[in-house]
């Protein structure tokens, strides 16, 4: 064993894009290797839970944890890594706010499993359902139990830093890696606990170069059905762009490419509920005082909850694990 600081990365309920984003930092990955001893990274290397369990508490210096808490295995590993890590980073949208897997919080487990096992693309003629434990001649085998709702990482364990994005931009990851290395060498100071790192402090609009004016919206449109002005703010053109409420850091990647921001960097600093902010913002600029007309304009927002909570449902006030437990 070397004396280098130890590095771990884990994925819970997530797609794997975050791992790719880490690898996508190009030659910087060599710095990681140079600076760290990678001890646990299931995607990149072979490792066993028991190896981690055998470590001392706080032995891992930096853990990038991505993915939400979908089942008891996710939670178990999260707790384990928390115990063993000095710096626990909630890495990527899934860990920070639930992301796409968190959209399952709209549904009950039954609805979710039904959808997975009975839709037309599923070849399941006997209508089988997964069982959490099953007796085989060799003994009882188990698979993890699903949580009622998907939880974010910080709803289960204490988190030191948040790094949003779906996935976090590679240049941001590189910057964070640089920062941690510098801090380890005593050349920089780590930000206060709980801070969001690898992202900006304002919103996507701050980085967006589109022209903008006072906003009054007479109709919402879907971008694929609308011919948009490439220079003009998308929201002004009735395209529900989440940019105004979304944390900066991505260099306004989507709006620059002609697509609306869908909010993967999550809420701006200090915002309590991302969707509520967007409701207020979008509805505020509707140009009508007549209830019927307002509702007609709102009909143009096809799936408002989906629009506002695509990445944020598990972290929202109303569909997070906390509120769901209260009932």
């Amino acid at each position, binding site marked *: 064993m070397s004396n280098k600081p130890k590095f771990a990365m884990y994925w819970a309920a997530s797609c794997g894009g975050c791992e790719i984003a880490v690898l996508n930092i190009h030659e910087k990955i060599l710095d990681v290797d140079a600076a760290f001893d990678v001890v646990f990274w299931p995607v990149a290397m072979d490792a066993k839970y028991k190896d981690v369990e055998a470590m001392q508490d706080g032995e891992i210096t930096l853990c990038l944890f991505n993915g939400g808490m979908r089942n008891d295995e996710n939670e178990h590993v999260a707790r384990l890594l928390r115990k063993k890590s000095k710096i626990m980073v909630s890495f990527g949208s899934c860990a920070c706010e639930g992301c796409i897997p968190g959209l399952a919080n709209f549904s009950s487990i039954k609805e979710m499993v039904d959808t997975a096992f009975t839709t037309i693309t599923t070849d399941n003629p006997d209508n089988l359902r997964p069982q959490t434990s099953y007796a085989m001649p060799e003994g009882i085998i188990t698979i993890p139990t699903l949580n009622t709702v998907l939880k974010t990482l910080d709803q289960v364990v204490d988190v030191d830093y948040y790094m949003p994005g779906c996935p976090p931009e590679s240049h941001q990851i590189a910057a964070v890696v640089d920062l941690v290395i510098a801090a380890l060498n005593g050349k920089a100071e780590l930000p206060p606990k709980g801070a969001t790192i690898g992202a900006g402090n304002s919103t996507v609009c701050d980085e967006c170069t589109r022209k903008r004016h006072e906003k009054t919206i007479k109709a919402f449109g879907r971008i694929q059905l609308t011919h948009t002005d490439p220079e003009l703010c998308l929201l002004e053109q009735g395209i529900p762009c989440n940019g105004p409420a979304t944390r900066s850091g991505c260099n306004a990647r989507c709006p620059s490419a002609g697509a609306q921001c869908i909010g993967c960097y999550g809420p701006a600093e200090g915002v309590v509920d991302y*969707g509520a902010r967007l409701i*207020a913002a979008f*509805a505020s600029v*509707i140009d009508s005082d007549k209830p019927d007309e*307002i509702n007609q304009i709102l009909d143009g927002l096809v799936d408002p909850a989906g629009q*506002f909570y695509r990445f944020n449902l598990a972290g929202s006030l109303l569909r997070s694990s906390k*509120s769901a437990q209260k*009932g």
Partner: protein
Amino acid sequence: MTEETKPFEPVMIGFTCNWCSYRAADMAGISRMKYAPNVRLIRLMCSGRLDPTFVFKAFAGGADAVLVSGCHPGDCHYATQNYKAMRRFYLMKRVLNQLGIESGRIKLLWASAAEGQIFANEITKFVEEVRALGPLNWNKTSAEIPVETKEEVTA
């Protein structure tokens, strides 16, 4: 499920405008009109101040229903802000509906400072309606809530 002998008493949060509905509530008090004690009021300077976060927070914090009230359209103390509140209200209601909260749990009420009686009556009515809906059930999912987009604004 525990056996309840007492009728369900919903807890409700009401957001009122400093210039109209809060004064209507004062007026109801001064006139000693009686209404159900389930609603707790929060004073905002204007219904336009109503951040949907407040409503979400109230539901998340255990409220069974939320009342939003402001000056009648055209009578806003700040000229037109109640229209902005109305726009937000409609969108908020749609989203709440998708998030599993029945439309009957959120109400928009226009009441002028003089309409103490209307305010009192509407609160009592609203409490009855929410009582009929029962406690807010978090385990309900959007699929189980009938989607309503038709808006009805009272008074």
